[in-house]
């Protein structure tokens, strides 16, 4: 099917103000972003390329930003239900979102840096809370859930085989209100307000076409994707993600993270260069965990608490010998050697959603893992962990999602265009 929908989009695009003007101004900025990488970019309100800002992550590229990108400090993740009934409205939404995402990731207000259309009798196109803040390495990453691939938009035959409905894992206590959705957007930024601003504005733009189904805030990155940063700690107080796929390791990314040409060739060549994301809201019962002895905690994890060394070793990055670790320890069960070498790129975040019932912290890990194929990665790993991991006693999986994240966007493209224009 060709993209017969583009011609019908403008009526909805009127929801967004000066798209043409903004496109023009951004076209100029894009050249700066590509040529000078991240050294010469954009101040919050002024598009002057002379202003040096070092915290812009380019939006366009072969792969979406926000996957291999070094993990930022904060997360706002939102799942949307598409409420539009026309394919044309979905395409116009993706175009409008892309435009706004380009602006916000460049540190520019939604609707562009100029005065808002409609003067002071119209609501501002940008909600305003990110004014004066830098781009804060904001990345916006989109994923399509299984629900999008039904008959509403003619996408049924393009659902990737790798986009599986996750099985029920032992011990799942999933809340339907925190599961699934048609489209997910991951906003990551070093400044929490920048991430929140991004999701808020994208939700607003979506009115009438998509509505938030659930959302999650996260902080204190729970895993690093670059060896230059110290390995962060999760809310159990342990280093997490020591053996993670590194964002600068192109070979590992190609092997474990990016969908390749030939994967799912029959239905999903549009995913080439994309990745599959599994999101899990994992509540940690931190009160009971904190009462465990240090010995027990370390036996459950399989690493020392202080430096994160595998038990029996001295240093964090010492080699792991799974057979020397307790049989039900987390590190042993999740070790790649148990799964024919499969790895995932984890970039989860800690969360605390205030207090739950009885005054206990509603806290845990919002697990985010990018992978080439969940059928050989997350699903077997989680099945093994949920059956045997001693840590499961302290974990409750309360939310879940699986998402096909399309490849990156060309300068003249939009989020998901490979799907919506695939023949």
């Amino acid at each position, binding site marked *: 099917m060709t993209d017969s929908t583009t011609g019908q989009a403008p009526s909805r695009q009127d*929801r967004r103000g000066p798209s043409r003007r903004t496109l023009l101004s951004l076209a100029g900025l894009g050249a700066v972003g590509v040529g000078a990488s991240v050294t010469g970019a954009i101040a919050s309100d002024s598009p002057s390329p002379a202003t040096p800002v070092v915290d812009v992550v380019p939006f366009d590229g072969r792969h979406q930003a926000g996957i291999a990108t070094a993990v930022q400090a904060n997360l706002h993740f939102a799942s949307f239900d598409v409420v539009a009934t026309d394919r044309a409205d979905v395409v116009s939404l993706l175009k409008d979102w892309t435009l706004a995402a380009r602006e916000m990731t460049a540190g520019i207000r939604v609707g562009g840096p100029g005065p808002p*259309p*409609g*003067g002071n009798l*119209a609501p501002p196109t940008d909600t305003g809370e990110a004014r004066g803040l830098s781009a804060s390495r904001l990345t916006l990453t989109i994923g399509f859930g299984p629900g999008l691939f039904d008959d509403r938009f003619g996408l049924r035959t393009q659902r990737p085989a790798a986009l599986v409905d996750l099985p029920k894992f032992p011990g799942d206590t999933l809340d339907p209100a925190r599961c699934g959705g048609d489209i997910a957007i991951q906003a990551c930024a070093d400044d929490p307000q920048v991430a929140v601003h991004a999701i808020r504005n994208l939700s607003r733009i979506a009115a*009438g076409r998509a509505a938030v189904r659930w959302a999650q805030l996260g902080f204190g990155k729970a895993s690093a994707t670059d060896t230059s940063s110290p390995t962060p700690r999760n809310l159990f107080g342990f280093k997490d993600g020591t053996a993670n796929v590194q964002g600068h390791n192109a070979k590992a990314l190609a092997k474990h993270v990016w969908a390749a040409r030939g994967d799912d060739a029959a239905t999903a060549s549009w995913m080439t260069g994309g990745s599959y994301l599994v999101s899990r809201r994992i509540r940690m019962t931190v009160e009971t965990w904190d009462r465990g002895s240090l010995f027990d905690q370390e036996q459950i994890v399989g690493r020392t608490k202080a430096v994160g060394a595998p038990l029996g070793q001295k240093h964090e990055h010492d080699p792991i010998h799974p057979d020397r670790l307790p049989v039900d320890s987390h590190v042993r069960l999740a070790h790649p050697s148990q799964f024919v070498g499969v790895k995932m790129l984890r970039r989860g975040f800690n969360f605390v959603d205030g207090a739950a019932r009885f005054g206990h912290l509603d806290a845990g890990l919002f697990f985010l893992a990018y992978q080439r194929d969940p059928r050989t990665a997350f699903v077997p790993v989680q099945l093994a962990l949920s059956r045997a991991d001693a840590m499961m006693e302290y974990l409750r999986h309360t939310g879940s999602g699986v998402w096909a994240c399309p490849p990156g966007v060309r300068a003249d493209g939009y989020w998901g265009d490979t799907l919506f224009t695939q023949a």
Partner: protein
Amino acid sequence: MPSSRLRPAALPAAALLAAATLTACGGSSAGDGTDSSAKNTVNINATDTKCKLDKTALDAGTVHLAVKNNGNKVTEVYIYEGKRIVTEKENIGPGTSYKLTSSLKAGSYQVACKPGMTGDGIRTTIKVTGTGGTSVNPQAKKAVDDYRTYVQSQIDSYMPVVDEFVAAVNTGDVAKAKSLFAKSRFGWETIEPVAESFGDLDPRVDLREADLETGQDWTGWHRIEKELWVKNSTQGMGPIATQLAKDVRELQSKVPTVEMTVASIGNGAKELLDEVATGKISGEEDIFSHTDLSDFQANVDGAKKAFEVLKPLIVDDAVVTLLETEFANVQTALDKYKHGDGFVSYDTVDEAQRRELSRVVDALSEPLSKLTAAATG
């Protein structure tokens, strides 16, 4: 019921008056006392290819365009301020003349002749300087007049229902009072933003228990609602009901002179949908009677009327189409809950259903928030 209930309601309205103030009784838009001698008359020689003005500098105030159609095609003449049409005259036949009169404030305008009555026309910029003039768009005046007529007719036609409700309360007929509660509020709920411009009238009539300050007297519909549904009684409600009818009559008497502008009408439409989004969807408005959906419908009706009277002022057809679509979607969603001559009790509408309603309301509210700018732009 707005969260801003206790704030002086006149303030936001006052801020908007600058946009396009129209006095209550309308009258001639040109009658501002400015000298309207020949020196403020532009003679226009219109042909099939030309639109020749004999002057392009004018004094603010009453302005005349004396058009002579010397062409072979029927023509029309417009004055534009930006994209906005200030005034227009269509169907000026070949060989005929027409004198178009308008009132212009200082500024830059364009005069356009449209031979054959199509296209953007042949345009000439004119400069208006000095003080005076109202630059009133006759379409804006009509919109305000139409909306005022609507507000008056809503109040007038629902006044007897209010009286009937009050009588039922006064005679202690609980069942009848309950049956009339939602209906008696309907007219009020369609035009509530107008009532909010009268200081304490709105809180006297429509304050919810949750919005009371400690020690504040509680009067109006919701006070009676609580007595009817919680105690199944009208005990002590007589004076409150009588005062309610008096207050609504006060509003009725004030409608002819209340300040109304295109901006206040557009903003009122947005406020009505805000009311739906924050009060009705959550079930907080009619927390005892669960008649929220009736108020919901009234708010939507009032917003839709505001949109309809402003529609001729909106240049962008896409905005009109989108709003028409979203109003229709909201109505379709509401229609599912119609029951008898009203609606089902809102406590039977579950959370998932409320979320569906909320989503269609959001879908309408977002473009509706741009109505004022679209109608004044």
